[in-house]
């Protein structure tokens, strides 16, 4: 095992984190709404030194054949080497794709966007909501930063106009049809059986496994993802669920304040 990993593990077994945080404590979260004015919606989220910008763009297109009266939701992410020396140029690899799908799952399964209200003409034209996640700085836990930014961007978005033929990119006052529930992912690293909320980069490199649980305001769970190599027991899941619900509530308040 490498030298630094040994050092981190020796502290974790005493319940200590290198940066002085408690094991159920997030780093400082900062949410900025609308940093990208030209996008329909956008948010920049900082968790410690991790920075993610999410932009929401809208377009009009054909619905999916099995959901003819619903809008289309798409989440994409590109890991630019800007954000970390680990990232390489090229199409999204597995980590990037996984992140996009976790964020997507949280939004889709919670039904926080009222998709039927995005229908313009059934079977022909619907609004497409395109969420793009752009990590700017990777210092651990991109998933939570992305998930929080995505929700903040959606809630602050304003729809453009549609003139019957094409989209006119002038912001209206009309918000996206949202149910006001906010799916919030909470990610924990698993180390020596302990759950560390919001792992930073060093902890991610040393962790045995990772658990992301996305919850909604009513305390229900709408997405779960175990990541990284490693295994855990039932108690760990139960603990993670409680943590995610609790932390999710705190973060939801933060998002509301920033809107």
């Amino acid at each position, binding site marked *: 095992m490498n030298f630094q990993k040994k050092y981190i593990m020796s502290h974790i077994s005493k319940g200590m984190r290198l940066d002085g945080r408690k094991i159920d404590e997030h780093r400082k979260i900062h949410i900025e709404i609308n940093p990208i004015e030209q996008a329909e919606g956008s948010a920049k989220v900082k968790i410690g030194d991790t920075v993610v910008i999410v*932009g929401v763009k809208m377009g009009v297109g054909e619905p999916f054949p099995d959901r003819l009266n619903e809008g289309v939701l798409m989440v994409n992410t590109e890991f630019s080497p800007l954000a970390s020396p680990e990232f390489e140029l090229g199409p999204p690899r597995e980590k990037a794709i996984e992140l996009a799908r976790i964020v997507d799952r949280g939004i889709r399964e919670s039904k926080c966007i009222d998709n039927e209200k995005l229908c313009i003409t059934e079977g022909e034209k619907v609004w497409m909501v395109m969420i*793009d996640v752009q990590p700017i700085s990777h210092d651990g836990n991109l998933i939570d930063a992305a998930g929080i930014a995505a929700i903040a961007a959606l809630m602050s978005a304003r729809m453009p106009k549609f003139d019957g033929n094409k989209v006119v990119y002038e912001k209206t006052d009309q918000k996206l049809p949202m149910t006001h529930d906010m799916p919030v992912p909470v990610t924990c690293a698993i180390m020596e059986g302990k759950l560390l909320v919001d792992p930073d980069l060093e902890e991610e490199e040393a962790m045995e496994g990772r658990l992301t649980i996305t919850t909604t305001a009513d305390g229900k769970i709408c997405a779960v993802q175990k990541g990284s190599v490693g295994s855990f027991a039932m108690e760990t899941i139960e603990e993670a669920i409680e943590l995610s619900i609790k932390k999710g509530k705190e973060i939801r308040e933060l998002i509301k304040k920033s809107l």
Partner: protein
Amino acid sequence: MERSDGRKNDELRPVKMKVGILKHADGSAMVSIGKTIAVAAAYGPRELNPRHMQESDRAILQCNYTMAPFSTNERVRPGPSRRSVEISKVTREALEPALFLKDFPRTTIDVYIVILQANAGTRTAGINAASLALADAGIQMRDLVTSIAAGKVNGHCALDLTGEEEEVTECDLPIAYMPRENKFTLMQMDGHITKDDMKHVIKLAVKGCETLYEHQKKALLEKWSKEGFE
């Protein structure tokens, strides 16, 4: 002449520059000119793989320019396009003449530019940011590289076109310029104008670059000047 945003012909849009904004890059900067926002990261000199790309007596410079999908009105499909490949190339060719590459054989210096919001002048904003990122990283340079575009709108030569002006301009002429030596390292032109107009437009762009040079120096000193004392 009244421009749509009230600027004079030789006036830049509002400029903001910040150095050292990314934790893990060796050097980084954010430059916004009007609504256009560019972020650049520089890494290196660092090990270059594959080995056959190494130059035995110097470092190589690699540049990549990308637009965030949400940066434009119509969403941009992620991934390289012919346009972004060309811009990456001319960006590299704009920065390389300023670097002392011989001091670091067999290595690479990598520059990544991401455009977060686009309203014309993205490649020039990117070059300004990249130049700052390289300086921030401690890379050896003969000068900073500045960059801006100028054109001819409504019969008048105008500096730093907006997106709206770009649609009606008779020419779009971006340059990159090393102010100390008065040398150009990038010049491109789209349009159809007389040679006198072209010279006039270039001179206007140079003026813009000289102003941007002061902004760049200020941004670097803002981050670093506490390290020295008078």
